């Protein structure tokens, strides 16, 4: 019952993100949507993941979104006339992603174990799996992210600094 309520809540706010005309309302909806997701994780007993969801996404990433939105200050709704190739490209990307997600979900449905909540188990489970079974994907991802950070720094570095 609680699960159903929060699923609907998450879906509604997710719809709100893309349907809002005002970008600030989209951001607000996004925060609420992440809250809904965090609650769903909580109901599965994954307290750690649920808290990290709020800490990282709602607490940091959306703050940066809002930051950028406020700096750019979209007063008017964004121009609706989009070029056809762009539309096709983004459509293909979205459908591809949806297909991928559907494949992954259809394979894993029914396998989501409900962890014993409130026992510290979830933190230990996550970290043990991360540093044993999934250590290679984890390390590859870290190197990938590190490369991204260095790349962003190089791109964003002011030109004048190199002359010093």
């Amino acid at each position, binding site marked *: 019952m609680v699960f159903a309520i929060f699923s609907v809540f998450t879906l509604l706010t997710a719809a709100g993100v893309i349907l809002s005309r005002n970008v*600030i309302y989209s951001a*607000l909806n996004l*925060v609420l949507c992440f809250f809904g997701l965090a609650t769903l994780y909580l109901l599965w007993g994954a*307290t*750690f993941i649920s*808290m*990290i969801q*709020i*800490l990282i996404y*709602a*607490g*940091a990433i959306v*703050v*940066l979104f*809002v*930051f950028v939105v*406020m*700096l750019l200050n979209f007063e008017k709704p964004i121009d609706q006339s989009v070029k056809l190739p762009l539309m096709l490209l983004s459509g293909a990307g979205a459908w591809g992603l949806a297909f991928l997600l559907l494949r992954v979900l259809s394979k894993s449905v029914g396998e989501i174990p409900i962890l014993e*909540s*409130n*026992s*510290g188990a*979830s*933190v230990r489970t996550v970290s043990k799996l991360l540093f044993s079974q999934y250590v290679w994907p984890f390390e590859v991802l870290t190197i990938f992210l590190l490369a991204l950070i260095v790349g962003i720094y190089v791109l964003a570095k002011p030109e004048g600094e190199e002359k010093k």
Partner: protein
Amino acid sequence: MNGLDFLIAALKAIVILVAVIQVVPVMIYVERKVAALIQDRPGPNRVGPFGLFQPVADALKFLLKEDPIPHYTNRLLYTLAPFLSLLPACLVIAALPIADKAILFGREVTIQIAELDVSLIYILAIGSLGVYGILFGGWASNNKYSLIGSLRSASQMVSYELPLGLAAVGAVMVFGTFSLREMVLQQEGTLLGFLPNWGIFYQPVGFLIFLISSFAETNRLPFDLPETEAELVAGFHTEYGSMKFATFFMAEYMNLATMAGLMTVMYFGGWHLPWITDAALLELLGSQNLLCLVQVLTYIVKVSCFMFLYVLIRWTLPRFRFDQLLSLSWGSLIPLGLLNIIVSATLMYLIGVKQ
């Protein structure tokens, strides 16, 4: 969960929340008195003995004033923002362990609203949402000064969450748990025979980083760049008046109380008195409820010391410049925090601590 459990849970939530809200009037009085002391003037002294009823007068004024909404603002977000700011400040209190156990209706009741196994991350996560109140408040005000104030606040709070988290990781490594209650339970007794067994002696650098970051997280001087009076009128709450302004104010003081509570719990032994174990104290007092009362008082005294420190620093140190503020976080505190983790981990490995 039967009726009695529900009653106890509700009672705990209400009593603790109402008790923590009392921080606000007390802090208004203390802040004004200490400011007066430092600036060599009498401070509030007209309302009641020693001006003690001044906070009541302030609160009445806030409640009775007209509550204007300027016509150029975004009504929805303008009204919502103060509550977005206060709500996380109230929610985080749920995870603070204030004392051990009391006997209530023949049951053992822990003095902590919610016993989460990840209570530390819960506080950091929900606490980080407080920034939305400031961000939306500044944006909805439709005022350049407010907007600059809230943008500053966003970059400041995001920057200082990192050293805060890194400092907390050090404490998590030492105690081997994310549960604040278990952290406090581990800080009983003495260390090396003469020191209290408190987290600060395991994580001195972590504590310093945490303390400095907590000033920035709560937008207190010397880091109150979001509301610099000299540059931005009053920053993000320029357009706010009466009770809406007071709501922002309450949120700030409650965040302060939470940060002080976190430091007490992580680094200063929580409810434990130094040098004496709970078992010995129980024998001395003879009653679990009396022991609980002593623990609550200990906790309050420790938190009050931190709150006093906050006030003292506010009135003694000048404000940072914004670039100095950011370079302090990214240039010094974050590398120091990472170093602290590496050094702690190495030491723990060498000593042979196994979690």
